[in-house]
């Protein structure tokens, strides 16, 4: 409520202040052109599907492949979402509402798996549990010859759950923290057992939080490419990649279209939930009231927390360290990790971050200060990056480039553009929130002191919003560093980055070589978490 009030007020002030109608028009035109460019990947999928013969389209949609990929994806999403709730909610309750020892420690370890890119987690799990993996080697002397295979549905579910459940954990925690514990005590004095009180009082109030987290998990699972690819489970993202590699353009486009539809459905649910949370119950009551004493459940509870932390953190880090120790053996030519991989990654990420800032600034400014419905549109459009999985952006841009700008095909420019489409929302979000914090009358004051509009902006607004812009740039930089599918599909031949290097050695027997790049990426993810936390703490 408070925020939207302030927003309205600021917009009002801004539109009153806008006597000069010309600059907004120019600004709007520029922003509109950018939005159209941003939408081009989606437009391509639609156009391509539209151009297909109806018979061919129907044939592809109802084909056996499409059917099984859809079923696989649905099963994967349901399983990952359900298991994430099964881990995230109890963990949140344990760390907020009970007398669990070392609660702060478990809170941190509970959230930390987010810093491990899921494909690196998958890689580590394959290395540990796969055939002739580390664990298999360890167990061999004990006479255990074969571990159940990690590949397929259960491996994919395991890895995705372990590295995405923190979304549910964090959103559930947030709603539990704002939940008034005396309500539980009230229920208990009204003759409800602890469990009945949870069902009738606690659960209905934290359900929106759980759902919000679950939808984030679902969206991530739907659009994740690396994990199912490494775990060899055929879902939309993997099949789109496979069809593209096989030059089955029609099939890839149809799968992309279906994937987009699914993503839209999830986002639609999410926006509903978030709208419903507007009037969320904010209570001032005593949070410690109704705290659960674990008693003899303390040990099992600690065991649960420790198991999760071991699987999500100790295991991948342990595997990476093991690789690091063994990486002494030199890799054959073409398989060695060099500084050029890092330089390429950093160069791409810097270009993407720079471009995102330049593009985000006018969009965010128009959205924060424009006042009209139309001026909000580009900001909305910029959010397509959230909805469109990297594989789809990669696929569209390959064919868009081939068709309209063939001289750019397989160039770094197209790749950077893909990053901008995907990660612009991060830059727009941080920039817009910092612009909203600047009183519009500052500009009016500057202009009344004789400065032109652009100079006023540069002298007064820019210094104030610079931290927000920098945070946005840092986020884009860091997320670009670890982006997998679009990088794989769009990079120029022979152009290798940290991510593509990991992908290269993934199947080969030179895993030891992946230790350093993988650790770099974990560090990079950790940094981006820090940036987000600092932004939220402001």
């Amino acid at each position, binding site marked *: 409520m408070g925020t939207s009030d302030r927003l309205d007020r600021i917009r009002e002030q801004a539109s009153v202040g806008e006597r000069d109608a010309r600059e907004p028009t120019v600004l709007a035109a520029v922003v509109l052109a950018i939005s159209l460019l941003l939408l081009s990947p989606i437009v391509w999928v639609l156009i391509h599907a539209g151009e297909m013969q109806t018979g061919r389209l129907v044939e592809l949609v109802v084909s056996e492949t499409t059917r099984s990929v859809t079923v696989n994806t649905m099963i994967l999403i349901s399983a990952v979402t359900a298991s994430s709730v099964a881990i995230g909610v109890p963990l949140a309750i344990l760390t907020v509402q009970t007398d669990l020892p070392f609660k702060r420690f478990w809170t941190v370890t509970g959230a930390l798996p987010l810093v491990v890119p899921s494909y690196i987690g998958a890689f580590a799990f394959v290395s540990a549990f796969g055939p002739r993996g580390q664990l298999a080697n360890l167990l061999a002397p004990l006479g255990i010859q074969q571990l159940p295979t990690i590949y397929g549905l259960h491996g994919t579910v395991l890895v995705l759950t372990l590295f995405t459940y923190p979304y549910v954990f964090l959103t559930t925690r947030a709603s539990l923290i704002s939940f*008034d514990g*005396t*309500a539980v*005590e*009230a*229920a*208990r*004095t*009204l*003759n*409800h*057992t602890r469990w*009945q009180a949870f069902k*009738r*009082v606690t659960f*209905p*109030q934290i359900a929106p939080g759980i759902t919000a987290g679950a939808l984030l998990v679902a969206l991530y699972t739907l659009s994740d490419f690396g994990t199912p690819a490494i775990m060899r489970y055929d879902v939309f993202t993997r099949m789109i990649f496979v069809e593209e590699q096989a030059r089955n353009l029609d099939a890839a486009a149809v799968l992309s279209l279906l994937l987009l539809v699914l993503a839209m459905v999830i986002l639609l649910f999410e926006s509903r939930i978030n709208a419903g949370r507007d*009037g969320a*119950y904010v*209570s*001032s*009551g005593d949070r410690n009231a109704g705290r659960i004493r674990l008693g003899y459940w303390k040990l099992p509870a600690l065991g649960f927390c420790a198991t999760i932390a071991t699987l999500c953190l100790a295991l991948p880090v342990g595997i990476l360290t093991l690789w690091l120790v063994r990486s002494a053996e030199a890799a054959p030519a073409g398989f060695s990790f060099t500084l050029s991989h890092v330089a390429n990654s950093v160069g791409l990420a810097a270009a993407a971050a720079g471009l995102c800032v330049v593009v985000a600034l006018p969009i965010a400014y128009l959205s924060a200060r424009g006042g009209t419905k139309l001026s909000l549109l580009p900001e909305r459009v910029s959010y397509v990056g959230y909805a469109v999985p990297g594989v789809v952006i990669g696929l569209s841009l390959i064919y868009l480039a081939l068709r309209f700008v063939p001289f750019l095909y397989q160039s770094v420019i197209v790749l950077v553009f893909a990053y901008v489409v995907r990660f612009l929302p991060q830059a727009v979000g941080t920039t817009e929130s910092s612009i909203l914090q600047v009183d519009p009358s500052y500009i009016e004051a500057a202009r009344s002191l004789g400065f032109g509009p652009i100079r006023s902006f540069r002298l007064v607004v820019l210094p104030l919003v610079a931290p927000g812009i920098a945070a946005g740039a840092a986020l884009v930089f860091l997320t670009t560093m670890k982006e997998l599918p679009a990088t794989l599909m769009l990079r120029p031949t022979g152009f290798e980055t940290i991510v593509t290097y990991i992908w290269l050695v993934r199947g080969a027997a030179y895993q030891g070589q992946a230790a350093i790049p993988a650790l770099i990426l974990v560090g990079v993810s950790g940094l981006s978490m820090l940036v987000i936390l600092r932004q939220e703490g402001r």
Partner: protein
Amino acid sequence: MANKDPSQRIADFETVTTAVEDPERTVLSMEGVSKDYGRELAVEDLSLSVKDGELLTLLGPSGCGKTTTLRMIAGLEEPSSGTITIAGETVTADGDGPFRKPEERDVGIVFQDYALFPHLSVHENIAFGLEEMDDVDADERVAELLELVDLEAHEEKMPSQLSGGQQQRVALARSLAPEPDVLLLDEPFSNLDVRLRVEMREEVRRILKRAGVTAISVTHDQEEALSISDRVAIMNNGNVAQIGDPAEVFENPESRFVASFLGQARFL
């Protein structure tokens, strides 16, 4: 009202019809109850008893153990030692005695911040403790209570749409609905502004007397204790310093502590 003399007030109360069955029956008794949190002793060897339909107020400075006493009666805290008996049933006792959980005691509680369930309407809040009744009976009981607390017009509203005084009346109705043996009120008026506080005191006293419920209220406000209670227990350092008729306690303090604690009020 607070300025009227005690006999006048008692006359007012007697015009209210009550549902008390046997005013001589002891509904609640506490014997030698102590509660410590590690080294800190919150309540020490406390004994008191409350009769059917009586309204007892525990009055004392903050930290004197009055809220802990209330929470032990409700079963939200477990005493370190001592025996509590409610309506003839021992709910907690020394050694291997039983410990009845809050849901196993017929005790209602009105919390300081009311703790209304924000996701439920007024009707649903009041019906919350009536799960064992069938729907028709429950609806009837809710209607009775809405009438008692004078909120018939607000049945379908959500708690957030109510004023502070209305929220308190809902909380009162909710805890009275399952007909508890004892009703506990934890600083019931502290969240109301001064004008409303005086008004609600009268209102709550009227409601409690009409319901005929045995009630224990906790406060640090002398005026409040004087105006609503049948008996007052002044608490200090986890124990009862003096207990008796409000006017008597105020006029004849038995100890220096009681005198100085009540004396402050006169200067305020």
